[in-house]
């Protein structure tokens, strides 16, 4: 049976927060405007030109040229929102994603609208954010997501069960040894089925997208070695096999045992993390032909799940993610600042819980801001994991250090909390 590659690209941009000083509280609540050192719009525009536009155009070409080429995207709602808000070049970026959908060869996955960690603090909020993103996918791409991926591939058995009850057929997860019985990420897996508590079960069922959930949820696991050969190691010149050619990579895929090589990575790999001059676009351009030479085809996640028989269980009793060497959730929830920020989100979420359906424009505005503050990137910026040595790692953060990230976040979320209290006092 021909082996296949399953490409999935993560497309996400957080709304970075403007500087908020304790001594001079802001006069308005445009938390996401005039951010420093670059505005959200400037960053979006820069990444669009380096990555989103050239890569979507290249993929459109590949879809046209190679009958066997397929791929998948997961677009966060906040990314799509930025496409809508920052029309130049957002409109063009969104149009390219629509064209990709129209080829019939590109699948759009489900995720939380706000790229959040909501599953960890509120199932209701989680389910709501999944629905919001789903609505966007239907609106723009006329696709109802069948396969789900959670923020940063964070997964645990109960998340799988929740997602199954919501009506999804498959989920993406990290191919990490602790969860894989035989350490082979190249096989489709069954989720280890567990039973949810009564309350969670009811929430999942309430937000179900299909009449009857599938009997079994299947899992596609990331081949992190081969994925990272592209995403992280592509331009490393120390490796003797590099610069990596499409030919060599196709050979590695061929040699990797199993049915499907799942290549999951940030879309920004193309042109932003790996700059154009590394030859990353040429690599992608030639990959389909080099794979075709070896009878390797490309399948979308849904096609992969339909095509191959699932075997053995993927069992995750603890959270697994695709982040850092630990592959756990410590990038977002490790130090005291994380826990404090997390508790604040959780506390405010409970306060807002009764007002989720409110028609009050002020409440709607607070809720929209609050959800943007739930984006996991804000917590990631607070991670102190890389600071032990005192040397500044090249750190994908708008802040100089994790402490600034925490202070600014807390100042902002407290301001939001204050706004909310004023509003709620008026309502009562």
């Amino acid at each position, binding site marked *: 049976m021909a082996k296949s590659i399953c490409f999935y690209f993560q497309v996400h941009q957080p709304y970075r927060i403007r500087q908020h*000083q*304790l*001594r001079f509280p802001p006069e308005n609540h445009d938390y996401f405007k005039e951010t420093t050192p670059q505005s959200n719009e400037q960053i979006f525009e820069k990444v669009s030109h380096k990555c989103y536009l050239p890569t979507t155009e290249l993929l459109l070409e590949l879809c046209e040229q190679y009958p066997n080429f397929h791929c998948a995207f997961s677009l966060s709602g906040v990314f799509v929102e930025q496409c809508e808000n920052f029309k130049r070049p957002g409109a063009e970026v969104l149009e390219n994603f629509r064209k990709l959908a129209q080829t019939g060869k590109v699948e759009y996955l489900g995720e939380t609208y706000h790229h959040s960690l909501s599953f960890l603090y509120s199932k209701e909020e989680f389910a709501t954010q999944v629905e919001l993103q789903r609505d966007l996918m239907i609106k723009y791409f006329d696709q109802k997501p069948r396969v789900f991926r959670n923020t940063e591939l964070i997964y645990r058995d109960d998340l799988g069960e929740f997602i199954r009850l919501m009506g999804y057929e498959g989920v993406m997860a990290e191919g990490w040894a602790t969860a894989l019985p035989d350490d082979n990420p190249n096989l489709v897996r069954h989720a280890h089925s567990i039973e949810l508590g009564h309350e969670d079960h009811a929430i999942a069922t309430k937000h179900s997208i299909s009449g009857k959930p599938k009997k079994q949820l299947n899992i596609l696991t990331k081949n992190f070695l081969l994925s990272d050969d592209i995403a992280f190691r592509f331009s490393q010149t120390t490796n003797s096999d590099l610069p990596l050619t499409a030919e060599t990579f196709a050979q590695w895929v061929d040699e990797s045992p199993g049915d499907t090589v799942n290549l999951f990575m940030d879309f920004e790999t193309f042109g932003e993390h790996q700059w154009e001059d590394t030859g990353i676009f040429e690599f992608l351009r030639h990959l389909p032909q080099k794979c075709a030479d070896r009878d390797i085809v490309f399948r979308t996640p849904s096609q992969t799940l339909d095509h191959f028989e699932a075997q053995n269980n993927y069992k995750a009793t603890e959270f697994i993610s695709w982040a850092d060497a630990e592959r756990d959730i410590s990038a977002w929830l490790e*130090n*005291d*600042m994380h*826990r*404090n920020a997390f508790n604040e989100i959780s506390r405010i979420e409970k306060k807002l819980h009764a007002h989720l359906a409110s028609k009050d424009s002020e409440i709607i505005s607070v809720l929209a801001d609050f959800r943007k503050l739930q984006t996991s990137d804000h917590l990631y910026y607070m991670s*102190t994991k890389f*600071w*032990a*040595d*005192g040397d500044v790692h090249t750190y994908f953060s708008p802040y*100089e*250090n994790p*402490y600034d990230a*925490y*202070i600014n976040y*807390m*100042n902002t979320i407290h301001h939001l909390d204050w706004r909310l209290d004023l509003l709620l006092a008026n309502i009562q």
Partner: protein
Amino acid sequence: MAKAPKVLVLGWEYPPVFSGGLGVVTKNLAQALVAQGADITLVLPQFITHKIVSSGYDPGVKLLTFANSAQRYDDLVNTIHVPTFMYSPYMNAGDYKKALNQYKKGGPDVSKSSAESDVYGENLWVEIDRFAAEVVALTGENDFDLVHAQDWITAEAAIQLKVKRGIPYIIHIHATEVDRTGTTNKDSEVFKREQYAMQQSLRVVTVSQYTKKILVDQYGIDPEKILVVYNAYEKKVPTPEYIKARQFPKNKEEFWVLFIGRVTLQKGPEYFVDTAAKVVPHNPNIHFHIAGDGDMMPQIRAQIKKFGLEKNVHCHGFLPPAKRDALYMLADACIIPSVSEPFGLTAIEVIDHCTPLIISKNCGANEIIGHKLEVDFHDSDKMAEYTLALQKYPELRRTLRTKAMDNKDRLTWEAQASRMMEIYENHTSL
């Protein structure tokens, strides 16, 4: 195996008698080197200055009490005392003259004969030459492989030993005139002496990349010749004085911010007071403590008065180590707004007590401290924001406190001494 390198270390201060970090460094490094097999002889000036101190001269040298005692300060390090009047490595020509005049005039407590005081040079430069000659004479009997000088003030002695007895020297730069005065006047006597001493040395050792850059950019020293050996954490056992000193009166409602160091231009005390002025209107429970003394004290007092901060900014003067340690312990935050600091042992002491640290970017210790809040020394707005945030968010303090421990184990005097040993052995095995 090569024989142990026999090294003459030219020191200035030695705990418990010291006015600054140099004494701490000298002691810890010398002991660790001896433990690693080096044969170290330490030259220390024999202070006869305690009477001057009691007559109220420089409070920065309050502790010079071992002057007349002849004991060895530990069993391992041989010490040779050379009488001199250059009792502080932080002194300049003016300070010397002032102190000497005061000494000659004699306060009520001074009982030395005038004959004794005649020994000292009429100005700092003469005294430095006299000290150098004494060192050469005193060490005449011994054969040293290498001389290890500290800062410019001992450099002349090292140069004389090189010229007269052919012993090469390395010079350890703990601070430069550029740091001390904040200017880059290349014509000053001290600048020229520092430059010459480095040019004549076998190797230059310094305490941070930050200082190395100054030595290269300002003094034109070949970067290949300069090695960085950071200072380290000192292992301390709580003493009874320390435990007693911890009973500092502190109201639970109060949030304490510390400034510890000499109150002098280099340390940026005025930015500490500026910060207080920006914080107190927002939170009167935040109190600022200045532990230290120095030439800028009158200016600082005037500044406190001008801003009306008498209730919130407290000046304690120079504190003995036990009391200082206690303050580190009790403080909720510490600010080091130094204009230029080659290393800044204070920073290490703050981290050692797991106290959250706001520190100037112009501070060499930054290179080895991961978890701190970094600022431009003059940016009192940012320091004020950090102070208020530290007060408001206990989790921020807790994260800084717990993470402070992260690289403590790696930064030991043993590790730093073995770097020095390498340098010694490289030059003695030639």
